[in-house]
């Protein structure tokens, strides 16, 4: 039996499939014994909640065949032997049935045990079925201590114009970073600052994208568009699609329609907003992202909800995927990021 999906590296639960055969849920978690059962529901724990026995399929591997998978978007689940539970620290596990999801906007501060550390992020990713993600951190050196492949993250190089050495950018891209990260708000420069040009020129040479925080002020989409116009071959992703009032989001979308190398990322946008953005600019120009795990292990399913206080990411993603055509859903939920960041040849892509 061979592993099909990517989830197993950050989650003890993942898809398993015999060559040409049926699809199973595989478990390599902390619970063991002959009485383990997969406790599951579909698409946000809709009733009926069911259980199916996990059976041994090899050393430290248990599998369960779940009926009617293809009729649903996602499997939400936990493992129990009737007394003990592995429910991912209380946030449960999710597996998407139709694609391998990728979060295009994450933060990982290092190996620490806090909400921004590797364990927190892995727990959060498993709770949302995120197979991998794009991550950055304020201090690039923090990620030097992390096994990014094991954590299923692809790092970005955080660039401060005038403060980050060009050689460091090149060296980090050589070492596996997949793009550049700009945060004009926190670093205090306009997003069209000419001082950025030597860095974006490196991205142009390397064929990698630039992810840029977008928000009122220095990170306004108008500034970001001017940067994109100077480097039309460099994909520039507007993180958050403007972290501010709807007026800014509409301007961001208008810029994407007119400037082909601009893209939208959706962290902190409600599902209905993302659906509207997809309708405005096309699914090929929208990337799902969440800012995980700023809110810790429960980032995708926190209560009270953390997306504008009204929605969890896990609930919103179900609504989003349900509303899109399958190809569009796959594009937004991972394929666009894989294409832009050129992840398909990478070992943990």
């Amino acid at each position, binding site marked *: 039996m061979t592993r099909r999906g990517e989830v197993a590296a950050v989650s003890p639960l993942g898809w398993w499939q015999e060559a040409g055969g049926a699809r199973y849920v595989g478990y390599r978690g902390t619970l063991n014994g002959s009485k383990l059962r997969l406790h599951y529901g579909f698409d946000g724990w809709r009733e009926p909640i069911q259980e199916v026995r996990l059976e041994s399929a090899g050393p430290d591997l248990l599998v369960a065949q779940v009926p009617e998978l293809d009729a649903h978007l996602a499997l939400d689940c936990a493992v129990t032997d009737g007394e003990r539970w592995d429910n991912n620290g209380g946030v449960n596990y999710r597996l998407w049935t139709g694609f391998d999801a990728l979060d295009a906007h994450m933060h990982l501060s290092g190996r620490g045990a806090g909400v*921004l*550390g590797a364990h927190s992020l892995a727990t959060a990713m498993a709770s949302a079925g995120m197979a991998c993600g794009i991550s950055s951190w304020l201090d690039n050196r923090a990620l030097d201590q992390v096994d990014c492949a094991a954590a299923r993250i692809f790092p970005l190089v955080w660039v401060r114009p005038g403060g980050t050495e060009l050689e460091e950018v090149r060296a980090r891209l050589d070492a596996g970073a997949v793009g550049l990260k700009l945060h004009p708000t926190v670093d205090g420069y306009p997003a069209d600052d000419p001082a950025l040009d030597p860095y974006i020129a490196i991205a142009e040479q390397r064929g990698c994208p630039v992810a840029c925080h977008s928000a009122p002020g220095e990170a306004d989409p108008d500034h970001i568009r001017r940067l994109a116009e100077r480097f039309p071959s460099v994909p520039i992703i507007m993180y958050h699609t403007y972290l501010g009032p709807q007026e800014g989001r509409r301007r961001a979308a208008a810029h994407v329609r007119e400037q082909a190398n601009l893209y939208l990322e959706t962290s902190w946008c409600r599902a209905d907003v993302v659906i509207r953005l997809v309708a405005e600019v096309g699914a090929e120009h929208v990337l799902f992202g969440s800012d995980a795990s700023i809110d810790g292990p429960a980032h995708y399913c926190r209560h009270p909800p953390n997306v504008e206080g009204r929605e969890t990411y896990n609930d919103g993603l179900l609504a989003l995927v349900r509303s899109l055509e399958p190809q569009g859903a796959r594009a937004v939920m991972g394929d666009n990021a894989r294409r832009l960041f050129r992840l398909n040849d990478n070992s943990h892509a």
Partner: protein
Amino acid sequence: MNHHIVEKEYRDFADDIEAVSIHYLCVPTGADADWDNGRVTRFMPLVEPGMRRLSLKLPVHLVDPRSGRPVSDYTLLYYFEVCRGGDRHYSQIYTEIMQSTAKATSDQAAPTAALPMSRRRSREIR
């Protein structure tokens, strides 16, 4: 010149500090501090091992919303957000009286009561 340059330093208290940011706000002296409006966040870069330093560009004048007039005396409030071990920690809030012709030195900076956590934004990095 339409701004003050005020330098702020932060000395790491441990070797495993993952990031330090300063959050600051300028308010007319005596006015209420509204951290949800006008707060500025800046990353504090390491300038030498264990030492972070950043120059803040502060306005010479503020418009006092109570009178609608520009005032040259105002209060700078700031605190540090420190990320260590994946967790965020916050310093107390400091205040300094800023004047157009002179300013309080760092030694004169005085801590003020810490904001309740609910009034701070919970997601500072993004």
